[in-house]
């Protein structure tokens, strides 16, 4: 990729320095928006660009902004910097290496929806990063880019960081709002959605870090420019976090619609140790497992194509699995994660992940029969679609897809277990 729009730090050294960022037109867009554009005009550009939320759901960003209830004030922006999906590490690089573009995105969103306060909710582990952002925010206040009556207008804006404390569920937008209100991070019943009932019950836009980092260039260069990249339904570039059994794991900014093959083999250097690729998880641990055949490898990574091979693009955290990995081990890992992170609010998720954990442990330890595999699938089915938020569903994706698509892994494991038992009881 020759051009970077999000990871511009890779082309422009020291763009994390405000002086350098401003030399590259930084905050000119924000200033011209506040001084010469109506808030709705900003929203219209974002809407026309077709930008879709980069946190996982892929919801059209401009449309979300336009849903904000204008009969209920004040409004808030909450930037979702809780990045916790296993396999995802893109927001961290954006905030560390190109922080001002992200902050300008937050500021443009705030102006567009008429918010005078925006919170950046970071996972607690990003403690050092939050301290760094606090220093950047202070700097922006000293430079009069944040504060009261900006650029001689009536518009005022403050940004604040807020640290979580180790809970995956807080990445879910309504759980995040609860957490920010000082409560347990547990999801709310929706509707109402945050644009009508958000932080402190007020209209709120919650957007992912990467989504917001897209906004300054979209407003500066226009929707038409943005649509030159990516596909019609998934415009723009995306930061793909590549991890697992691959030579060169890391973040790769590529146009949406790039194939799995290009990401994994051309950029990621392929599979180490002379092994073969077996499966792909395109959306982190909450992803279905794709059988990595030629068709899958040639599938474009965009919101509309990945479902054709039985998964979702989600946050585009591509975990590569080689042929040394058995799926019973893999789902034991993912199920442990979700059992630990279930917030406990909905019974199917709380109890279901607990029981799935026991069964996957038995299977991977070679102590289970085929009946246990069927039972596991039934428990997963009992969770799917029956919870307030997506965490419950996420916990079932790898389980159900691997049983369906990698059945022989489970057969091998349970046959071996049966033979061991047979050998023990035989005289």
């Amino acid at each position: 990729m020759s051009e970077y729009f999000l990871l511009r730090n890779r082309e422009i050294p020291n763009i994390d320095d405000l002086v350098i960022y401003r030399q590259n037109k930084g905050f000119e867009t924000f200033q011209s928006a506040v001084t010469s554009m109506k808030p709705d005009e900003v929203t219209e550009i974002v809407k026309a660009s077709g930008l879709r939320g980069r946190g996982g759901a892929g919801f059209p960003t401009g449309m979300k902004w336009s849903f904000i209830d204008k009969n209920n004030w004040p409004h808030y922006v909450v930037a979702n910097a809780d990045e916790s999906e296993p396999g995802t590490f893109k927001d961290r690089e954006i905030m560390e290496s190109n922080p001002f573009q992200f902050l300008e995105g937050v500021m443009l969103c705030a102006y567009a929806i008429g918010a005078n306060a925006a919170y950046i909710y970071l996972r607690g582990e990003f403690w050092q990063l939050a301290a760094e952002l606090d220093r950047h925010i202070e700097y922006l206040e000293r430079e009069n880019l944040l504060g009261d009556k900006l650029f001689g207008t009536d518009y005022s804006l403050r940004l604040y960081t807020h640290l979580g404390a180790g809970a995956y569920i807080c990445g879910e937008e309504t759980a995040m709002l609860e957490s920010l209100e000082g409560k347990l991070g547990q999801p709310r019943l929706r509707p109402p959605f945050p644009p009508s009932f958000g932080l402190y019950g007020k209209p709120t836009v919650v957007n992912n870090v990467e989504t917001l980092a897209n906004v300054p260039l979209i407003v500066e260069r226009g929707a038409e420019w943005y649509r030159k990249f990516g596909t019609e339904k998934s415009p723009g570039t995306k930061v793909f976090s590549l991890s697992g059994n691959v030579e060169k794991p890391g973040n790769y900014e590529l146009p949406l619609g790039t194939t799995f093959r290009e990401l994994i083999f051309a950029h990621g250097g392929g599979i180490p140790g002379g092994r073969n690729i077996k499966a792909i998880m395109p959306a982190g641990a909450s992803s279905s497992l794709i059988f990595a055949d030629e068709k899958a490898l040639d599938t474009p990574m965009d919101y509309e194509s990945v479902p054709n091979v039985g998964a979702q693009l989600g946050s585009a955290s591509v975990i590569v699995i080689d042929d040394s990995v058995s799926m019973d081990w893999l789902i034991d890992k993912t199920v442990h994660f979700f059992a630990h992170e279930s917030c406990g609010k909905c019974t199917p998720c709380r109890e279901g992940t607990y029981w799935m954990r026991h069964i996957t442990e038995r299977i991977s330890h070679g102590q289970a029969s085929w009946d246990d595999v069927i039972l596991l699938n039934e428990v997963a089915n009992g969770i799917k679609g029956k919870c307030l938020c997506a965490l419950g569903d996420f916990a079932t994706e790898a389980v159900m897809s691997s049983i369906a698509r990698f059945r022989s892994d489970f057969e091998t494991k349970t046959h071996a277990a049966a033979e061991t038992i047979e050998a023990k009881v035989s005289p």
Partner: protein
Amino acid sequence: MNPLRERYGSEIDNVLAKYPADQKRSAVMPLLYIAQRERGYITRAQLDQVGEILGISSTDVASIVGFYTLYHDKPEGKYRIQVCNDLPCALRGADKFLRDFCDRLGVEPGGTTADGVVAVDGVMCLAACHRAPMFQVQSRTEISYHEDQTVDKAMQLVESWRQANGQ
């Protein structure tokens, strides 16, 4: 007088100023981080103090401590090492790293070394999958990331803490 208020008055005021005046409860998480700096865990008395500052019950404060994994309610090692061994890290050898590291320290995962310096355990995803094996260290005052680790490198870090602690 509230001891937390007394010791960290201006810092607490700065935290409270981030949130609307009628939404003081929002400050419970940052205040718990301040409280935890004192001993590395949060005491019963501190639950009361945080609750008093925010006008919420000690039980509510305790529920927050219990829900979030970065708050602790009992003492462990001075440095809590948490090795990420979720799927992407495990594919890059994190399980073996955790086992070997624990062997070298002479503890089981979840345990604390005899000198009380290090507690080590596995942890859920830390958003550093491309630099596994990796871990975070939570001390009284901060959290730091240590990436692309080997057991030898990690042991050097532990030794540097032991020397700093005069052992």
